[in-house]
């Protein structure tokens, strides 16, 4: 371990040190200030005479008298099962006045890529109890499914609801609920969120008893931005350890990825790098991929890492680089919607731009229910149709539309108020969700259900559901059709 007192330049979050022995790229550095305070950093660039160091806790009050120690190794996270129930700061140090953590292992925080041939393809349905997710954008174990939100929307409530309710149906059969705790763990990684938001999460974890099966990493809004670069890596290293060494099914909540990316941009600017789109560094895609791709399952190991990153889209714009690059890496997205929110829908999930790429393999007979895929497809198509018609209604009025169009409009309304808006405390199982779906679809004539297998229509279609409340004109034709078919 070599110690220097040769700081040449301090600029933004960076410190440049003159050295006489080579140091490794990415190596960890300890900086001791004259007043005894300790800071940590990481080597960003290394040549024979200089090393540039990025300081996690910010360069506040560092002066040229500070001494710099190169530790000769890259950043490691001390991991142990005892981390469950603990609250750590953004650099992985406990801040909950608990006992000292005795690590079982120290893992490199730059995770190695999982070999695609060693991955197990994710297809185990996770029931979140949220219809808009379970029914339309199903989450599976080992998936990374972000919530695309915006300021002022209740993304935290949705994340909490998922963390609270997520189960795999067979566990329900065995245990009655998922409270056995030995299986399921939450790693919560806060990056630059406010203390208030953080308290909201912690209070809910404590209230529901989830805290004892959680590890919390907390980098708050007033903590150094540079530290945000390592916080998610510490969290994911812990998650991988719990999942692949200790067989937990780990749900990782990363919030808020927007703050993470802002920190990335800040450091890029301090390093005088050539910026990419909107000033974010050109390597942001690679950097985000190194976080998101750490979700998954591995053949022959019990556990899994499922990620729910949360990000707030600046200006509600999903083409902004942060949501855009995220969407290209993650396996779908859950979109929060401002209009639905002002209508009071809980959760305000707009299913149309939402997507779960791994849904098709996680649903169907033996997994959820035979009709799941078809029902979801048909609901998508019908709701999209109704949505389109709303614009038209504003111009020509409902009376000018055909009977069929009015059915689609009613369906779109009921879809929002009955299917999507279920309340943050309501836990619906998949049967309920699909049954509500059939309630809605049965308001359409059978012949319009072109995406559903005919046998399934026979089995699930509700002959009695066809009456829109306020009108009786369409009843006759519905009834006539039903009779004709029967």
């Amino acid at each position, binding site marked *: 371990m070599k110690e220097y007192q040769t700081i040449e330049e301090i600029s933004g979050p960076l410190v440049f040190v003159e050295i006489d022995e080579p140091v490794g790229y990415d190596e960890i550095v300890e900086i001791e200030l004259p007043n005894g305070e300790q800071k940590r950093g990481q080597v960003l660039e290394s040549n024979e005479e200089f090393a540039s160091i990025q300081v996690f806790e910010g360069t506040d009050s560092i002066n040229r008298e500070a001494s710099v120690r190169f530790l000769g190794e890259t950043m490691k996270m001390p991991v142990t099962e005892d981390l469950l129930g603990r609250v750590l700061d953004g650099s992985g140090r406990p801040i909950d006045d608990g006992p000292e953590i005795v690590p079982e292992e120290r893992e490199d925080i730059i995770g190695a890529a999982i070999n*695609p*041939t060693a991955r197990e*393809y994710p297809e185990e349905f996770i029931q979140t109890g949220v219809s808009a997710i379970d029914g339309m954008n199903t989450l599976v174990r080992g998936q990374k499914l972000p919530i695309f939100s915006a300021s002022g929307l209740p993304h935290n409530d949705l994340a909490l609801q998922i963390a609270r309710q997520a189960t795999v149906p067979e566990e329900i059969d065995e245990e009655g609920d998922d409270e056995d705790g030995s299986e399921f763990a939450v790693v919560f990684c806060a990056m630059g969120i406010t203390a208030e938001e953080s308290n909201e999460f912690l209070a809910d974890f404590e209230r529901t008893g989830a805290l004892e099966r959680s590890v919390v990493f907390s980098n708050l809004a007033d903590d150094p931005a540079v530290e945000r670069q390592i916080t998610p890596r510490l969290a994911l290293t812990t998650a991988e350890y719990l999942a692949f060494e200790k067989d937990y099914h780990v749900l990782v909540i990363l919030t808020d990825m927007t703050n993470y990316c802002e920190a990335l941009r800040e450091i890029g600017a301090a390093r005088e790098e050539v910026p990419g789109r909107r000033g974010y560094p050109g*390597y942001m895609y*690679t950097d985000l991929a190194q976080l998101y791709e750490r979700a998954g399952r591995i053949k022959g190991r019990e556990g899994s890492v499922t990620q729910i990153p949360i990000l707030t889209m600046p200006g509600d714009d999903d083409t902004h680089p942060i949501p855009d690059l995220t969407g290209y890496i993650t396996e779908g997205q859950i979109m929060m919607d401002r209009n639905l929110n002002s209508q009071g829908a809980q959760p305000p999930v707009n299913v149309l731009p939402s997507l779960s790429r791994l849904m098709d393999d996680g649903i169907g007979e033996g997994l959820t229910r035979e009709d799941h895929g078809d029902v979801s497809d048909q609901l*998508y198509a019908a709701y999209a149709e109704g949505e389109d018609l709303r614009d*038209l209604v504003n111009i020509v009025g409902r009376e000018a539309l055909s009977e069929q169009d009015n059915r689609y409009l009613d369906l779109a309304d009921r879809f929002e108020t009955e299917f999507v808006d279920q309340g943050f405390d309501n836990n619906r199982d998949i049967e309920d969700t699909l049954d509500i779906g059939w309630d809605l679809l049965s308001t359409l004539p059978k*012949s319009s259900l072109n995406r559903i297998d005919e046998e399934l229509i026979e089995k699930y279609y509700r002959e009695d559901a066809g009456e829109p409340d306020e009108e009786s004109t369409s009843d006759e034709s519905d009834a006539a059709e039903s009779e004709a078919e029967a």
Partner: protein
Amino acid sequence: MSQATDTQGDEDGTIASVSGPVVVAADLGARMNDVVYVGDEGLMGEVIEIEGNRTTIQVYEETSNVAPGEPVTNTGEPLSVDLGPGMLYSIYDGVQRPLDELEDQLGAFLDRGVDAPGIEMDESWEFTPTVEEGDEIEAGDIVGTVPETESIEHKVLVPPDYEGGAVTNVEEGAFTVTETVVELDSGEEVTMHQEWPVREARPTVDKETPKTPLITGQRVQDGLFPLAKGGTAAIPGPFGSGKTVTQQSLAKYADADIVIYIGCGERGNEMTEVIDDFPELEDPNTGKPLMSRTCLIANTSNMPVAARESCVYTGITIAEYYRDMGYDVALMADSTSRWAEAMREISSRLEEMPGEEGYPAYLAARLSEFYERAGYFQNINGTEGSISAVGAVSPPGGDFSEPVTQNTLRIVKTFWALDADLAERRHFPAIDWDESYSLYRDQLDPWFEENVASDWPEVRQWAIDTLDEESELQEIVQLVGEDALPDDQRLTLDIARYLREAFLQQNALDDVDAYSAPEKTYLIMQAIRTYNDEAFAALDAGVPVEEITDIDAAPRLNRIGTTAEYEAFIDDVESNIESQLREKY
């Protein structure tokens, strides 16, 4: 990746500085593009810049903890791939290391500093010569065959850089790829293994105009926007619009002899799906396992960025090698945007002057170089072979005006534009029929006329016209509602709806619908046209439009796609439509 032997020690240098994947070495006697091994762990890298005594290297692996002063060894050879039997059924990373081999050596996570040859050097293959002693042979000639897989006969080629000469000795029987099977009087020895630098196109005699379609089994592609064998296509689309599903359908169902699928900077789970699925699937044209004609290159987004830059070259070099045997090769690159971003990332680490949106100024040149390696070729050994290249493009925010999409569009001749709106309403494949185009239509029409139906171009034009008319009418409908339109236009809307739902939409998850033969594609189009003709005849005879569109035979058009015995079903639907409409007047 080929394990080049170390050369003279005096060419070796030491590391001067490290910044991410870019390492600068001092005193390294290397040429541009030479492969070097960096540091104590021997990480593989490639020389990308030489300035005085300082050589800049892009490293294909993670460089954490690599320090100045560590050695750099030069191999003296450019980045090359191993070519020979055993590449089919294989899954490689971006520098042709077999992933299953890496899993055996390293476990579930990819570590660094490990090398493995691209083909199994110890495995024996049954070699049957096609030349005799005394034959005069030249570079590129076929000297024998090897049964590589159940569907592909591997042809053993004289390397293109050989002089050639008279055959002095020929072996027959089981040999490993490194053993000599043919000797020439020039002293040259031919084995089943050769190496070729990835950044250099293998030589050919001539490029010809492609005249046969690459049948994809997708109705919207074969029917409206066909791709030629030897053609180039781009699939741009925002995330979630189904680029990968479209690419995978192509890889599964295209009627090429060989498929090279490059997952460039994409999702790990998606690659795993391909790796899990393909071995279980059958080639619909031959009934043989799909993997027996497939080579996968998987460089996921979290693997080192420099290997992402090289993976498309690795893929196209392997494609060229099979083309030289006279095969039709289809190459899918998903996604070329990630490749372009890898160039950008390395370029910015080199502090090069950026072009548009930070991409290097040579972006357009690199893209066109890549697509130009596709085509229908006359090979140097007299055979004909083709490479069809299909590149997915992931434009930021779905904005097609960005540099990668624009530079790609200037080169490719088929454009399958994916649309987020269509994807949102679960219209798959979400190929936008207004924006897409194919410049191969005219040169492929004779083939379709001869092999499918003589009125193919005419029926297709009818479908396109109907869809165009619908787009125009939809604008009016948005303003005044459908009921305000005259009857004939309302009927057109109904017919266009069937074109969209029964013809353009195709369910990749349905076993039957996933692949639609050109005959089926044609018959579905024709069935909808029958409905069109009958419906307009009824309308002319005074039948109200509501009664026409209400017949219960028409919605059955939507079920043709998922019906296996489609011919009888279509006959039945057509005659039902006919009788139900005719009895109204």
